């Protein structure tokens, strides 16, 4: 659950994959203030292209209430072509097409609804592409 104020401040990375590239080469989709490797504060702002490959994945059958209607669904750790590591739900993909090393493309999707009256949460998911 993300209430609207928490949700709004995360829009740059969730909607546009805005990321940071640090001098050590570390690329972070999560907003950081210094390089976790070198500690340096300089970075370059980049937008991830939204392509990458699966490093590992799982198919989740038991989940929290907010995702219950989606089960079973897959989640993967993805390494983007820029080198950022991203955890994302997999959508529009048959489970048998999931593989370590499979190419994925990010798509913009609804992540969850906060009940019938709360805000709708959007963000990135990934789908396997040939």
């Amino acid at each position, binding site marked *: 659950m993300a209430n609207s104020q928490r949700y709004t401040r995360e*829009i740059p990375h969730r*909607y*546009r994959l805005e990321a940071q590239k640090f001098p050590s080469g570390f690329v972070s989709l999560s907003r950081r203030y210094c390089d976790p490797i070198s500690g340096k504060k300089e970075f370059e702002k980049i*937008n991830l292209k939204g392509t990458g490959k699966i490093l590992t994945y799982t198919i989740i059958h038991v989940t929290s*209430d*907010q995702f*219950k*209607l*989606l089960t079973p669904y897959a989640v993967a750790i993805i390494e983007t072509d820029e080198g950022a590591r991203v955890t994302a*739900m997999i*959508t*529009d993909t*048959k489970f048998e097409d999931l593989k370590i090393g499979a190419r994925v493309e990010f*798509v*913009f*999707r*609804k*992540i969850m609804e906060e*009940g*019938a009256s709360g*805000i*709708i949460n*959007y963000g990135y*998911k990934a789908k396997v592409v040939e």
Partner: protein
Amino acid sequence: MIGIVGFGAYVPIYRIKSSTIANQWGDDPASIEKGLMLLEKTVPGPDEDTITIAIAAAKNALKRARIDPQKIGAVYIGSESHPYAVKPSGTVLIDALGIGPHVHVADFEFACKAGSEAMFVAYSHVKSGNMDYAMGIGADTSQGAPGDALEYSASAGGSAFIFGRENVVAEVLYTHSFTTDTADFWRREYQMYPRHGGRFTGEPAYFKHILGCGRALLEKSGMKPEDFQYAVFHMPNGRFPLKAGKELGFKQEQMNEGWIVNIMGNTYSGSSITGLTAILDVAKPGDKIFMVSFGSGAGSDGFIFQVTDKILEVQNLAPKTREMLNTPHKVYLDYGKYVAYRKKIHFNEY
């Protein structure tokens, strides 16, 4: 020259066959497949709605337009299934695509006509010199009540069009709109499904407005049906648009390319305009296209386009509409999965 500089469509990968729905309600599948000429329809995935569909279509339009999103001065999304009753859909889109914040955004609603309406306003902005580029989108995840005839047609998809003056791929030659107050189909606040006037949706509504608009557009342009390579009309089912087209003097061959309703269903605000994208996907320089939308309530927007040389450069820059409709990744849903995806059953509130 003013016209379309980029276009893009999007349909989900999920489908339900007319026969699956017919078997659920004890209807005769053949009467749907042959009578309404509907074989299957698109269904939004559980994580898709009008906003995500509009964004996917708009991304494809941007790929073809090859412009800096920041140059787009206005974005309009037409839909009868905006996810929020109050809170715009377009704001999500502009933030997702890097358009704005210096941009005019509005959501439109006019039953199945809201998409062409968004195009009309976007085009008018460019024509007036108000801005260099404007985007009009029609997208829907429309709902038909279980057991209602609309359940066979109400589907999901959408298309986006960027209008501009440079690198135009399809010039707008003429437009015309035709509107009256006709309550053939409506949905009141807090109601999940629309209601309609049955046969009243036909002659006094669909045909009156499509033909009224279409005839006026032909007259205004001084063109004849045979001047066009393609014609596309709003597609609430398979039969209506073909009948309306013939009454206006168009031949089946002119209508085939844009007639995608048999495998897509009625994507409401994204119906005739997605047919238009299917035409633009294959059109050749110089081709003329005749399009008339229809929205219950009721009204029609008509456009005449002329395709330019530039079309050949952009056709392959984004997925083509019929490719998406015929994707090998199609997933057919059974009726149970379908009602769960469409939230037609009551779930626990957490």
